[in-house]
């Protein structure tokens, strides 16, 4: 089986073979590739970037992202929660706007600073 690593722009194509309990891998340029493949086979996760509504005068929506990776199959559930929320300005880049979203352990953080 081949899995493309999405950790960095190298996009290594990693060949994976199961040998009993062991995973044999080749093609990854670094250790992050191994970790990615392991996660991909057990509990694939992704970071999520989107926008949230705000009460800013100049920006109707404000960019946000998860500060870690959430389970891949929860992306649309998390979107549904985010779509209901509102970011109050002023907000600073990195501020938490939703804590521990849907119990994933990840927070949503603002990715830009807005004063008004």
């Amino acid at each position, binding site marked *: 089986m081949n899995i493309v690593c999405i950790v960095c722009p190298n996009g290594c194509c990693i060949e994976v073979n199961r040998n009993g309990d062991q995973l044999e891998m080749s093609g990854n340029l670094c250790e992050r590739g191994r970790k990615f493949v392991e996660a991909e086979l057990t509990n694939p996760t992704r970071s999520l970037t989107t*926008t*949230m*509504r705000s009460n800013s005068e100049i920006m*109707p*929506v404000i960019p946000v992202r998860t500060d870690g990776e959430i389970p891949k199959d929860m992306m649309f559930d998390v979107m549904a929660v985010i*779509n*209901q*929320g*509102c970011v109050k300005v002023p907000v600073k880049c990195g501020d938490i706007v939703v804590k521990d979203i849907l119990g994933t352990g990840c927070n949503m953080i603002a990715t830009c600073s807005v004063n008004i």
Partner: protein
Amino acid sequence: MHIVDQLNRKLDARFGDKVRAQQEGDVVTLTGHVDTWMEKVEAGRMCASKQRSYYIVNDIVSEKEDILPMRVPPIKDTLLEGKHYDAVIIGAGIVGSAIARELARYNISILLLEKEHDVAMQASSRNDGMVHPGIDLKKGTQKQKYNKLGNEMYDKVCEELGVPFQRVGQYLGFVQKGAKYVLPLTPVHWHKMGVPCKYVSRKELLEKEPHLNKEVVCGLSFPSAGIVCPYNLTIAYAENAVDNGVKLSLDTAVLNMNVQNGVITSVVTNRGTIYPGVVINAAGVFSDEVAQMANDRFFSIHPRKGTNAILDKKAAYQVQTIASFLGTASTKTTHSKGGGVVSTIDGNLLIGPDAVETNDKEDYATTKESVASTFAKQGIASPLLKIPDIITYFTGVRAPTYEEDFVITKGRKTKNLVHAAGIQSPGLTAAPAIGVSVAKMAVELLGESKEVTLNKNFNPIRKAIPRTAELSIEERNQLIKQNPDYGVIVCRCEEVSRGEIIDALHRSVPCDTVDGVKRRVRPGMGRCQGGFCGPLVTGIIAKEKGISIDEVLKSGYGSELVYNPTKEALQNE
């Protein structure tokens, strides 16, 4: 032998007994069945009178692809129900708008109807912007008469209406070896036609147009040719008309008329029934259908598409005027005065147009073949033309009759009617003169039942929206001091300020669409084609009109640019 017998013999030879010609007065009507639209057009063309001694009405049914019905705006209300107007003009293209403005010189009530969401939406915004000298027009035709009169009016009209216009001149190059012996004699012919013309040697021609094909032997110069922005002029005419009291009703299509005893008693539209004194048919490609509704049809329109390509301003150095080689203008084969390569009033280069018959009067789709063929043709005159320099292309539909002449006349059977029909190239050039002439005819008809006096308050001057990028630093500074929005550039390619865009949204001819703003002040006309400024213009329209972004239209109804807000919470606001 009667004409109709000759025609039937010709038709028999080509179509068997499927098609027949009948004559009544000076109208020959064709009936019968053919397969394709092109066969129907062919039948009409082969019967047309070269001397224009009779008209062709082509009622042949083309079984496989007959004419498509007019697209009607989706609105239905009673805005105009029961209203009376002295003059009702159908169609707010260049012709209808010019007529409206000229009629506004009289103390009468005038209604200008347009089925689209803006003026100048059809042929008037889809042509090459050439003000023709009248090179290939036949003496005695309406085209020739009005082209000459219209051309002469251009300086004054454009001055009054605040529309940029330049007499750049047209150059016709010849590559035929013998041309330099024969050509010096030809200007006499043009002078007789009232067309200023001068012989130019190869050297003179290449001095004026150094990037033309060097194989040119000599040429002719037509100094009275000019360039104008056709939709700018139409909008200006319409605005000046409205400023002088004309009522403009957009999104209003004429659906039917009631005619009794040779008089139109009412005009039925999607916005109510109107009671006119006189009706003016300036309906472009639909002018034969309007004539039919008015019970006064004696000509047929066979729509003919033409595609033009616009090149980046970077390519504009190639031609300074209007240039083509003999045989490369589409003149020879298609009855349309192809512009060749035109240096537009806005500083682009325009290539085209071609000519393709169509059964859809609103067929604005472009094709690869059209662009490729115009390029190949004009490339002979201007060898540096490159397809990658194209920033956009567009298609318009001409409204030729089979006689290939304008129909500018009072109604024949119907008394309170004036036709300004069958207007194709050089309609833009002719429009100022058609406006005056048709207004006069309409006033004469109205004068039969009431006294028509001159409107002393008529103001021929229209103040244009300032083009800040073209002002001197001092003028620009002054304007920005008055209104800082003139200092905020929204469209980077054409350097259009926010102030100009806001101006465009608050003129006497209503404008609330992205394309409407684009036609008025040019954001999105440049090389990025609105990639950057499109969403910004959308935002400005929403704010100025007090609507939400998802209500802003690109062009007509149903052309909303975006759907719902991304966040439900936004919707509840």
